[in-house]
């Protein structure tokens, strides 16, 4: 039954100043959602409000600033129980019979624990350090650290590190985003920026485009349940291999790249026929248990002669500490935990908005658990899922993370305006689309420059905050929870985060 958009009014209203509009029609050419059109008879620009996703492309390109997008003032009858959004969603599902789809992280109002954690600084008894005058070290190594220290026959320390490590100039990596879910130019931007910054980006589950092999030293290659694009050269190409068990935005479910996004290039990279849907199953069908995971970890290590660290990425779920402990004992070198606010190119919004737990609490629980079991040095811990700023990074490291993954922040740097419409393949910013005309809008030179700027700026801020604490090396910050205090948190939250309340000494 084709019900179209029955009962639904536009969410946004395109407001145009006719006085300022010069009829250049750039908005019309730039909008992939077909919002703007020119009425020749009236000599004026008009808008189809119902097509607008509020991506701000037209607002940004309008040369006379004649445009703004307003949230429609049109409202259903006031109802605190049935909000407009909830009512609209019922109409939508009654219209379509489908699951609600969304993109990027959940927009719902859940507590952001980063904002309830405050950082310490030195006063009197301990000098703060000026990062402009003193060395300030952010270099980070990811991988197993618990190698047994031994001596050779002459009694000299054997100083070869046998566990492979990923070296980062700052404790920040770009999260997994597949080629397919984002564009060639977005990948090119990430790869170039990671190389210039001395950090890593992550291929996601879509394989590695042949053009990007030269950036391998700064690439994490991902192996996910669909095994797209996985072959021997791919595994050897990166600085490390990530097994994706879960994703914060959609714990417990798989992924679906629609056939219309699978053009010749994506098809070759993913090693699937052109135009075919790329379905990632919910579980890995060779991993139904922790012992199966161990087999995959060691299969990948065998395939790469034990030269690549293996990351196991999971979404933050209720039993995350115990699961992490199991992974730490499975041979994995690094555990990546993705919080429930993490982004995605497409996910059922009910799952995205309701399944999983916040990354801050997951990190608190995992780091404490691994230490209680004495196996914290068995693995490195990387966290992602809504790291908004440099101070979120500092807080994550002090809670116990070795490094963070940033996805949404990286996309914002590339121009993303968080309209949450990635799944439509119509990204007006050339990021989450395979439409060649749109992809061209993202120039990788500018994209890479903006990513380098963002991470460099964060690194400066991290160094500034560290210096204020009297810390000049990132390892002295890692797990240093006494450098944190909570505000507006209850005792249970403080206990799980393992931090004191503001005003408490010790």
């Amino acid at each position, binding site marked *: 039954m084709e019900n179209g958009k029955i009962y639904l009014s536009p969410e946004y209203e395109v407001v145009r100043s006719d006085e300022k509009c010069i009829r250049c029609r750039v908005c019309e050419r730039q909008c992939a959602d077909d919002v703007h059109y020119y009425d020749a008879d009236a000599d004026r620009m008009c808008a189809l409000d119902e097509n607008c996703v509020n991506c701000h492309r037209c607002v940004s390109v309008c040369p006379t600033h004649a445009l703004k997008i307003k949230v429609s003032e049109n409202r259903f009858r006031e109802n605190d129980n049935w909000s407009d959004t909830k009512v609209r969603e019922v109409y939508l599902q009654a219209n379509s019979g489908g699951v609600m789809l969304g993109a990027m992280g959940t927009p719902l109002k859940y507590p952001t624990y980063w904002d309830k954690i405050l950082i310490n600084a*030195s006063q*009197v*008894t*301990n*000098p703060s*350090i000026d990062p402009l005058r*003193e*060395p300030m*070290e952010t*270099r980070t*190594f990811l991988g197993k*650290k618990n*190698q047994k*220290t031994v*001596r050779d026959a002459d009694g000299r*320390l054997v*100083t*070869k*590190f046998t566990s492979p*490590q990923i070296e980062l100039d700052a404790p920040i990596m770009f999260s997994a985003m597949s080629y397919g879910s984002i564009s060639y130019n977005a990948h090119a931007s990430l790869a170039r920026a990671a190389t210039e910054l001395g950090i890593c980006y992550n291929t996601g589950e879509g394989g590695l485009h042949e053009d990007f092999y030269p950036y391998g030293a700064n690439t994490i290659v991902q192996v996910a349940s669909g095994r797209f694009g996985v072959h021997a050269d791919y595994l050897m190409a990166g600085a490390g291999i990530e097994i994706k068990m879960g994703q914060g935005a959609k714990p417990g479910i798989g992924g679906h790249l629609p056939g219309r996004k699978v053009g010749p290039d994506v098809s070759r990279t993913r090693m699937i026929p052109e135009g075919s849907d790329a379905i990632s199953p919910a579980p890995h069908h060779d991993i139904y248990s922790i012992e199966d995971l161990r087999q995959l970890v060691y299969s990948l290590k065998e395939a790469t002669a034990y030269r690549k660290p293996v990351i196991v990425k999971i979404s933050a779920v209720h039993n995350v500490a115990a699961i992490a402990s199991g992974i730490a004992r499975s041979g994995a070198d690094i555990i990546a935990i993705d919080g429930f606010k993490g982004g995605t190119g497409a996910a059922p919004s009910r799952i995205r908005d309701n399944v999983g737990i916040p990354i801050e609490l997951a990190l608190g629980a995992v780091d404490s658990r691994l*230490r209680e079991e*004495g196996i*914290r*040095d068995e693995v490195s811990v990387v966290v992602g899922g809504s790291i908004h700023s440099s101070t979120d990074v500092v807080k994550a490291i002090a809670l116990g993370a070795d490094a963070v993954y940033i996805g949404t922040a990286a996309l914002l740097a590339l121009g993303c305006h968080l309209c949450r419409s990635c799944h439509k393949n119509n990204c007006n910013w050339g990021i989450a689309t395979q439409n060649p005309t749109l992809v061209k809008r993202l120039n990788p030179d500018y994209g890479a420059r903006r990513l380098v700027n963002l991470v460099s700026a964060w690194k400066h801020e991290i160094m500034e905050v560290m210096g204020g*604490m*009297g*810390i*000049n*090396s990132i*390892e*002295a*910050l*890692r*797990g*240093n*929870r*006494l*450098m944190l205090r909570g505000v507006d948190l209850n005792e249970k939250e403080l206990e799980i985060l393992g931090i004191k309340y503001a005003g408490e*000494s*010790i």
Partner: protein
Amino acid sequence: MIPLRHPPLEGQIRIPSGCAISGVFHKDGKTESGRRIIDSIALMHDRSNGLGGGFAGYGIYPEYKELYALHIFYLDQNVKQDCEEFIREHFDLANAGEIKTRNIAEIRDAPKIWRYFIFPHAYKLDSSELDEREYVAECVFAINRRFEGKAAVFSSGKNMGVFKANAFPEDVGRFYMLEDYSGYAWTAHGRYPTNTPGWWGGAHPFSLLDYSVVHNGEISSYDANRRNVEMFGYDCKLRTDTEVITYIFDYLTRREGLTFEEASAVVAAPFWSTIELMPDDEKEFYTYLRKRYHALLINGPFSIILGFTGGMLVLGDRLKLRSMVVAEHGDTFYAASEESAIRLIQPELDRTWAPDAGEAIIVKLYKEGE
């Protein structure tokens, strides 16, 4: 402000502190009484505030040199019997008695202070499958845990002893009558805790087995270090920076088998920018230590003197945020926060210098024939 009737103790609260430290070491094994070290630390009176002082002497119990000497504060005398029962259960007891002290006006709140010369029960040690030193260390932790706040083992090495109290160091020296002991090495500490009353167990030196640390500074990496060593069974009950430094050195040298030079390169690691300029083998060496023991890098200002059987280690932080002067005269080595504290007791010196940031100075007793 309403005064606290029961001010919190360390263990409930962490006390950052400034301080003075001093050390004397006779490489030829010659011994001296505690008089000079008391004079040396007394000169730096203004670097402490009367809330903690202490000494460690090495070679002071030659008659019991094969036995472990436990020094215990009984803050609550009711636990003494239980504690001694624990000791008898795990050790052969050769001698026990109250440590002799002088009654002085400056020290009024003294707990009972006892000393036990002990050796692990052969059978218990055997069945524990631990090496002897690990066995003793675990028993020390067990006592401090079991009688937390009531009894505290503050010295547990062989042929060495720690003497400390909640007072100015010169008064602590008089209180313990250190002029009656004779050792080849001494360290001393005057404490300046900044925000709460100090207490007896929180004074320096901080000691485990024969390691003792006196420390001037406040380390900003404290919780990163603490949470790492706690994984290896070191309960940081006292929450002083110095406690964690002692455990780090114990862990690295005794459990991981590093030399003191290597352990120093872990806690005061060279910067990456320095490491990059090194020849390849050195680069690999320092890189290994930094990667492997990343969580034991100490940040923030510190200068320490670590005493151990037959040796002494002097080390400052990697930015040199605390003063430290060392000197030599004949076969005697000196170290102190201020040069004046050395000149006072040995005006003529062959050589005086300030070690570089992160540079470890290690002195040891001469081996036979040296």
